């Protein structure tokens, strides 16, 4: 038994029965798939939202691969994160089309409005700022993706309204737009 699994932090998804059931289900369904590590980690990231150190150890144990390999994969791909992110993830596209049409200015503005830097999450755990590569909506440049929504042709002075919309959404307890 890996040491880290002997003492799982209370806040870890593995310590929450519902999330644990999801994790077990993902492992069970995929354990015999060739190249299972990537498949399992992708699903964990999208269903749980992050892959904690304890979860990595758990995956390594269940799939019978070295923990170093699982950790190596998690750290290699930018989609995998080891810490939870905000409810709304603002990803500003830094693809070429968006870059030349003004993403850097948008990022400045967003950092100013939210008072956080790229890669950080607001203290209330609601909004995370990130960048991403081309999302394939270049004709709408500059583009920002908020979770699954795509916002195009954003002008810096319109950005606060967009941010505000998401802040209100969460205040009203409504998740769906």
């Amino acid at each position, binding site marked *: 038994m890996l040491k880290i699994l002997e003492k799982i932090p209370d806040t870890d998804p593995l310590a929450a029965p519902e999330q644990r059931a999801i994790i077990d289900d993902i492992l069970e369904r995929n354990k015999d798939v060739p190249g299972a*590590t990537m498949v399992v980690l992708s699903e964990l990231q999208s269903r749980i939202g992050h892959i904690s150190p304890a979860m990595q150890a758990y995956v390594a144990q269940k799939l019978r691969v070295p923990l170093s*390999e699982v950790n190596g994969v998690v750290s290699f791909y930018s989609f995998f994160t080891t810490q939870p992110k905000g409810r709304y993830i603002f990803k500003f596209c830094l693809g070429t*089309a968006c870059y030349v049409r003004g993403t850097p*200015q948008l990022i400045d503005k967003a950092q100013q409005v939210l008072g956080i830097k790229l890669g950080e999450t607001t203290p209330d755990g609601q909004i995370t700022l990130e960048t991403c590569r081309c999302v394939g909506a270049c004709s709408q440049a500059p583009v920002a993706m908020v979770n699954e929504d795509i916002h195009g042709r954003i002008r*810096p*002075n319109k950005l606060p309204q967009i941010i505000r919309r998401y802040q209100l959404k969460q205040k009203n307890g409504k998740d769906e737009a």
Partner: protein
Amino acid sequence: MKFYRSHVLVCVDPECLAKGAHDILDGLQDELVYQGLIDEVQVLETSRIGGCANGPEIVVYPEGVHYVGLSVDQLPFLVEEHFLKGRVVESLLAKEVKRADEELGPPKPKEVRVVLRNCGKIDPENIEDYIAEDGYQALGKVLSEMTPEQVIEEVLASGLRGRGGAGFPTGRKWQFCRSAPGSPKYIICNADEGDPGAFMNRRVLEGDPHSVIEGMIIAAYAIGASRGYIYCRAEYPVAVRTLNIAIKQARNLGLLGDDILGSGFSFDLEVRMGAGAFVCGEETALMASIEGKRGEPRPRPPFPAVKGLWGKPTNINNVETYANVPQIILKGAQWFASMGTEKSKGTKTFAIAGDVNNTGLIEVPLGITLREVIFDIGEGIKGGKKFKAVQTGGPMGGCLPEQYLDMPVDYESLTAAGSIMGSGGMIVMDEDTCMVDIARFFMEFTQDESCGKCTPCRVGTRRILEILERICDGHGKDGDIETLEMLCQQIKATSLCGLGQGAPNPVESTLKHFRHEYEAHIYEKRCPAKVCRGLIHYRISDNVCTGCMVCARNCPVEAISGERRQVHYIDPDICIRCGICQQVCNFNAVEVY
């Protein structure tokens, strides 16, 4: 089967989704039910080709009427007028001149649709639609009339070359894999499309997934492979969903699985998702990723055809390469080879983006000139500005200036000019673009995406980036250009994979064609395009400013002071030169100098 008198196609591209295409879909359904038309009119989702600038939009067939700029409250009127009373609603019609309109109708004069022929025309989630357009006929022909060798012969004779970057002859690749010893053999479709500004593969995957699947089954038969993977980037969730639906439907009809169409040939397919690593587009890194490992490339040879996925012979091609195959089999190698140039046959899709009037997706015969693409199809530069350069081939490509506009677009010409074909991204830049800044941008990209396995790429790109950043910040010094040239050569010669070997290309091509801009930055401390923040200043012109406060409110660092109706002032010590004030000013009162 139900008979519908009309079909409504609703565009669900990201662009349109962002503008509420889902509400239009639901609203249309509701309204058709309400007006008692739901048994006569079918609502379908579609993936449109090119700019959805005026979305949300729909097309009504059989008339082919194209409505744009819809909102939910217009739907009751639209449904009543169009479907009940049979009258076209003029006010919502797409404007004649818009390319968006013609994209669904006949292609532009210079366009030839082979790969994109079905996109926007058929329901990608319905295999019957594809079959109605001669889908899976090529597969039937291959399985019943042709030997694997004959299939390879046909593809060889067509002259088809890989559409994923390097342009290797596809038939030859298949031959190698067929003759390689070992089993099982694997087929992989590279749908990682990582080049920023490129979205050709996405359209095909979302708009016509079966053409790719059919091409893969044919390739599998030719090579003798029993299992296939489509490696799709995680940024394309819609494509992954569409592919999974298509695979399931093909399986249900016996087009995938055991004993396909009673021929005794068995093959199955699954989708694997990437996780945001650009280098995974490189074939050996991609295979490592499917195996569940870090996506690090390895040296070739051995080539994948000999030693690929799990050490077995593997054929890997791009989405567009496979999508061409069924057409080649059906219409013959001769037909395909009649398009294009002597060495580059067929058509190629390009994603045109940047400072051009008509951005979007096109498919043209190879050999067309850059001028035709940018000025005839793209309708020239936005805002009447001057053309400066076009960047082709993504982060490993190059920037070509005006004198190359009449060059034919084919593999050899682009390489000779210092760029590459790449996967087909084309970014047009106007006179306001700083080429040093662009080189820096691409270097930042490759530096960030370098997997770190080999030193020239990991450290070399970092060194180049540092120098470029220094030049852009106004601290360039004598000798920088020579150091850059030396670094470029060394990285190219010694890197492990195509990422490092291609990474210096944007720097080399800008050094070659826009050397004067580098010199202006270094020796005159001047950015000719007025882009580089370290070399420019903003000020507000006294006699134009109306004192409206807009710039002051939008300044991210509160560098602008001034009362309402009084001329504002930018404090140069606080200003970070982001240019937001200039963008938001309604009176053009902000100047750069």
